[in-house]
């Protein structure tokens, strides 16, 4: 079966995502770089699927698709953990803001 339609479709999808990503001004350069790297790597495997077989052979894993699966699980787990840590920090910030507002309101007559 001819993989070209899939490859072209994937390339267009990644280009569209990249264009949308680069237009977002609120994301840091590091975040943009990370996502571009992940999508580019995915696109590389789409265009050169034998790369995963080469990696599998080097790592002693049977199939290239298994390498991709393990790598994907690892990357996704790390991304979810990072997201959770970010949310946790934001929760702490919210708590701190709520705390300071409560203190300011209750103690304003004492000048504190």
């Amino acid at each position, binding site marked *: 079966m001819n993989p070209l339609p899939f490859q072209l479709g994937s390339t267009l999808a990644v280009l569209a995502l990249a264009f949308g990503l680069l237009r977002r001004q609120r994301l840091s350069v590091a975040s943009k770089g990370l996502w571009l790297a992940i999508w580019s790597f995915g696109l590389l495997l789409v265009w050169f699927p034998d790369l995963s077989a080469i990696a599998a052979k080097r790592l002693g894993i049977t199939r290239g698709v298994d390498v991709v699966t393990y790598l994907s699980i690892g990357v996704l787990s790390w991304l979810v953990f990072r997201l959770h*840590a970010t949310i*946790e920090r934001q929760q702490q910030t919210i*708590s701190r803001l709520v705390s300071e507002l409560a203190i300011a309101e209750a103690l304003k007559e004492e000048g504190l």
Partner: protein
Amino acid sequence: MSDHIIAVIPAYNEGSQIAQVVTRVFDEVDRVLVVDDCSSDNTARVAEDAGATVLRHLVNRGAGAATATGLRAALRLGARVVVTLDADGQHLAEEIPAVIAPVLKDEADFVIGSRMLDPTGMPWFRRAANRVANVVTLSLYGVKVTDSQSGFRAFSPKVIDGIRLGASGFEFCSEMVHEVFEAGFRLTEVPITAVYTDYSLSKGQGWSNGFKTLARLLVRRVS
């Protein structure tokens, strides 16, 4: 520094209990701060009518966050010692002097009122849950205490200033013990009595809450 003794009582929907808790605590301290964690009942108004200074959270943030608010406020008010206790009537106000004594005598910086030093009257399931929590605190933080989950605690001002008050939920109980230990502050425990009524048993940490607290502790420890 003044001889100001300030009590901090974090409260969430304790409208039925808070008045008598505040009244009894006032006999032992100079000032009572009640931190209302966005209760849906009349906790704040009742506490204010009982004479407490009420700090109101605009949104519910959890027991840890409410405790942190009260501790920060007490620090700014120039407290000599701060005592925290539960709003559900589980703790005896008459035992406040025993809990704050080590701080006032400069024998300790942080005191835990421990129910486990004399667990008479403590339901078996609460003892079991407490033991599990103590094992978790020891495993995650390397700190051995007999009652890591007690909300009846005394603080010197330097402890409040020197630890990170970050945890919002009940995981703050264990995390605070770790922070105090890591910072090298002097920690001690004194026996306290815990009053268990149907009401107080319905409050605090149940098993399902305990599992959530454990999960949050694990994530906070790793991240």
